[in-house]
């Protein structure tokens, strides 16, 4: 592994402010680390020229006393789902292999304007469909963590697998992710990082390659809760170009982090949902969850047992809603306006051949499921039914948040698993998201915070969920939890 120091955004901002390091030096260090760790396959496209240019511009701004904020000069990875002007954007798909956007997504543009330095476009599951980063057309991503005493290659989780590999592998200070059913939180849990999904609508979806529009939400992946707050504040905000964007001020999450950082959870009401106990859940995960309860209680939180009765229906609901929306969104890849074209004798044949060659197996499977559940005669039985159950799931949370401020659960039902496991059965893979999907369906903000290591020395995350637009509460609780957990392990420590 890299001997690269694991910088946090906060530490980098501090060192840059004191003149102890320049953005160009930080950027060059990280470029070197990327070059030395290509075995991770964390990036689909490296953008080192762009990075050096932005680093120099950041240093020039700083020399003039014109610093854009704590992200200014900080090298980050950009999930390859955000359209970036002049830098290839593939969504990890053959169908977009040569797509070079002529415009910048709102979120990546905000991060650029905040002065951050884009090192490259991070690998992911194709169109963000997956939980192990094994469906990328550009190859799977290797988890920088290895189990104690074994030499197995583990998956980094997904779909934001390249983003978490880059940060936990020490080759980027932080990264963007997108989360449709758990794609930020589950990989963060698999790699000992903080991953945060904002309230639906906080971060603009404009310019983000669409998967399931009613669920897709961008968010930060970082080493610490404080870093996640800094980056979230830079990414979020109203955007008239996204009709589902929330027109309200971005909350002061850094102040919320400061409030919880000393281990203060006084007055915080924490709900423990009994439906999140699964048969056959690894003992280490139950143990960490119990430990999380004790930590919060010891810091002054009030613990309450709560019930979210429709939890078991969240995953099947998701696997109707998400493929339905995906089948509609991905209809645009027709070989006409951009992307791959495979010639055919007729227009229909051209469409069919293009899409058969351009999309991988999992994407094709989901498009077909979505096409089926939306087709004439089945729409009410599947799609409308799923949207009704979704209302019930959201109502469960609404009623729980009358009594508590946050809900505490495990992030994922397992630690990172070996490449090759769970690959034969799509449903076994889908179960990875059993704890993350309910908050996605309800549009709620949620965060995975590293809690500890399992018996194999692999990281496990705890998930906090708060009510709609209650990001400040979420960050305060997460900062307290992070303080209590005192998680300092890094990938490569054990090997």
């Amino acid at each position, binding site marked *: 592994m890299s001997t690269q120091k694991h910088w946090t955004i906060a530490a980098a901002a501090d060192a840059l402010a004191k003149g102890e390091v320049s953005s160009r030096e930080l950027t060059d260090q990280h470029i070197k680390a990327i070059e030395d760790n290509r075995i991770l396959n964390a990036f689909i496209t490296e953008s080192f020229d762009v990075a050096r240019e932005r680093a120099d511009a950041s240093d020039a701004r700083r020399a003039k006393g014109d610093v854009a904020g704590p992200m200014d000069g900080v090298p980050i990875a950009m999930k390859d789902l955000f359209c970036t002007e002049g830098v290839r954007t593939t969504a990890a798909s053959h169908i977009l292999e040569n797509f*070079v956007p002529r415009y910048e997504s709102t979120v990546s543009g905000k991060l650029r304007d905040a002065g951050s330095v884009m090192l490259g476009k991070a690998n992911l599951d194709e169109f963000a469909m997956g939980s192990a980063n094994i469906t990328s057309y550009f190859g799977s991503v290797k988890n920088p963590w290895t189990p104690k005493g074994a030499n197995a290659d583990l998956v980094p989780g997904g779909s934001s697998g390249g983003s978490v590999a880059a940060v936990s592998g020490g080759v980027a200070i932080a990264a963007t992710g997108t989360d449709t059913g758990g794609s930020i939180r589950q990989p963060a849990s698999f790699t000992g990082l903080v991953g945060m999904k904002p309230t639906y609508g906080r971060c603009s979806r404009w310019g983000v390659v669409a998967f399931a529009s009613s669920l897709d939400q961008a968010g930060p992946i970082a080493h610490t809760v404080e870093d996640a707050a800094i980056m979230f504040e830079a990414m979020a905000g109203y955007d008239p170009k996204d009709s589902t964007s929330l027109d309200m001020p971005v909350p002061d999450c850094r102040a919320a982090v400061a409030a919880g950082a000393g281990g203060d959870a006084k007055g915080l009401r924490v709900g423990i949902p009994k439906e999140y106990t699964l048969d056959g859940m690894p003992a280490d995960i139950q143990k960490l969850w119990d430990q999380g309860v004790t930590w919060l209680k010891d810091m002054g939180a009030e613990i309450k047992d709560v019930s979210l009765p429709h939890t078991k229906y969240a995953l099947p*609901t998701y696997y109707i809603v998400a493929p339905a929306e995906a089948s509609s969104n991905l209809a645009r890849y027709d070989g006409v*306006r951009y992307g791959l074209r495979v010639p055919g*004798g007729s*227009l229909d044949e051209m469409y069919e051949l293009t899409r058969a060659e351009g999309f991988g197996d999992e994407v094709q499977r989901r498009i077909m499921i979505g096409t089926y559940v939306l087709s004439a005669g*089945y729409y009410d039985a599947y799609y409308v039914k799923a949207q009704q*159950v979704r209302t019930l799931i*959201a109502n469960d949370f609404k009623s729980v948040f009358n009594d508590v401020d946050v809900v505490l659960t495990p992030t994922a039902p397992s630690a990172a698993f070996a490449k090759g496991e769970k690959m034969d059965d799509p449903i076994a893979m889908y179960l990875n998201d059993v704890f993350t999907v309910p908050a996605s369906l309800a549009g709620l903000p949620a965060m995975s915070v590293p809690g500890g290591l399992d018996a194999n020395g692999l990281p496990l995350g705890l998930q906090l969920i708060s009510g709609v637009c209650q990001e400040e509460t979420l960050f305060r609780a997460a900062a307290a939890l992070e303080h209590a957990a005192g998680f300092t392990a890094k990938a490569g420590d054990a090997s």
Partner: protein
Amino acid sequence: MSLNEDDVRKIAFLARIRVDEARLAPLADELNNIVGWVEQLSEVDTNGIAPMTSAVDIVTPLRKDVVNDGDKVEDILANAPDREGPFFAVPKVVE
């Protein structure tokens, strides 16, 4: 409801994805596995429950009906697989 090869052929055409004849049967099995699993939702009582249309209650924003974008022909055609002048080019559609 169980999907057979004919159903899969029809779905694949609706989705405009070419599926080889030999793949129809295994694909029917894969799709049936998933469809069978999601059908557990039928046991949920949803009488009188409104389908969720938006995760957060917001009023759909309106904007003035004015032109605020345009004149981007070269940007729009920049990634086109084939073009003729300022147009996308496709195989002959009308015989």
